[in-house]
């Protein structure tokens, strides 16, 4: 699985970080999303999929390997 996040769309809601904290974070200056693990291990996949659904502005994209 490959994870990308569109910072142009991101509204700094942090839903992704709270759902999958090993994969996403937010920058402290402006709260924009940061992908900290772009190829998360299988154990994280369910949480990452949930983050994608939760993102209020559809800024998270997943590419299934």
């Amino acid at each position, binding site marked *: 699985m490959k994870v990308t996040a569109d910072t142009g769309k991101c*509204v*700094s*809601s*942090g*839903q992704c*970080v*709270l759902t999958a*904290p090993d994969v996403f*974070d*937010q*920058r*402290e*200056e*402006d*709260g*924009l999303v940061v992908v900290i693990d772009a190829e998360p291990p299988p154990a994280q996949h*369910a949480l990452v*999929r*949930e983050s994608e*659904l*939760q993102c*209020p*502005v*559809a800024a998270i994209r997943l590419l299934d390997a």
Partner: protein
Amino acid sequence: MTTTEAPHLPFDRRNALEIAPLFAKLRDRGPLSKVVTPAGDLAWLVTSYEHAREVFRDNRFGRSHPEPDTAPRISDAALLSGPTGEFDHEERDHKRLRRMLAPAFSAPRMRALGDHINELTESCLDDMRAAQDANPGEPIDLTPLLAFPLPVMVICELLGVPFEDRDYFGSLSERISILDGGTDGETAMEEFKAYTLALAEKKREDPQPDVISDMVAVQAEDPTFTDDDLARQAAGLLFAGHETTSTRIALGTMFLLSDLERRDRFVADPEGQVQQTVEEILRLSATSATGGLLRYAREDVEIAGVRIARGEAVLVSSDAANRDASVFADPDEFDPTRAPNVHIAFGHGAHVCIGANLARTELRTVFPALFRRFPRMRLAVGIDEIVVRNDKIAGGVRSVPVFL
């Protein structure tokens, strides 16, 4: 639209843990229904999950109105009852606000705040213990000892508001959120703005690492962000820290205590279960007395085959959407093992609640701490005896009597 046959909000519900059965009945008839708001005006009520998300994401809906004086209203409260902001630059103003607030509510700041929230929680739990010891055999009320003071302390800290003023701004918060508050609500709102503006003046001289200081800094660079904007936003945030999380702490405790096996399951491993338990509490705890979050159509829009005319009001019911059986199996059941649990308790789209992470951080701290300290806690009265506050914007309950 005509008022004939449209049901009147707020709808009756049996107790604080359920929502009015009418929401599901309306959803069965269609995703959007005409309703009469508590203010007596007509609005569209969205009860389906799919369409709630659609409306939240659609920028043809906003919080401002092309002709604010004629806009349908949802209540006579001084807050969230009618149009807010300027129709012509709503999007610009909203973006500026998000940018201004995002750093303070970001995950790194929430992590930094975590230990402190822990300490505040423990001190509230000490107070609960002391109250019970002072009156053994008598129930204690969780609301004034934990559910209310904890979120207020946290929001004070984040905004840079003196906690000592809590009785004063607490009563202002109360007055602006009464649904038929009328002119008293307006007076309280003006007082509230004067209070936050006075705080801003102090921070202009002596900036601190807090949100009101951040706002003052933004204002120095952007004069279109007026004193009135600043005062209103600060009051709105301070108000939000009172009602929303507080209601969730109260209702969450009631959910966990309404079935002692459920309580015991949580007590067996609070840390391990808290994340999903909090999401389920958020999904099920209905906190809207007004029916939903208010939007106005900025132009004519068609949703689910329904034509919504420019300027009409739309109430998006997260409470109803979160119990939509097409998305959540057995939607009225409290099931902390649900996965995924993509509820919209904080809204959705660009306006999604900026305090969501703060609320989650508080809730994820409070429930394990509470049940680790008082694993045998139980309700002192039946659920049906705990009165829902239908006269306040956020619904909620006045008291939660428990034995520790």
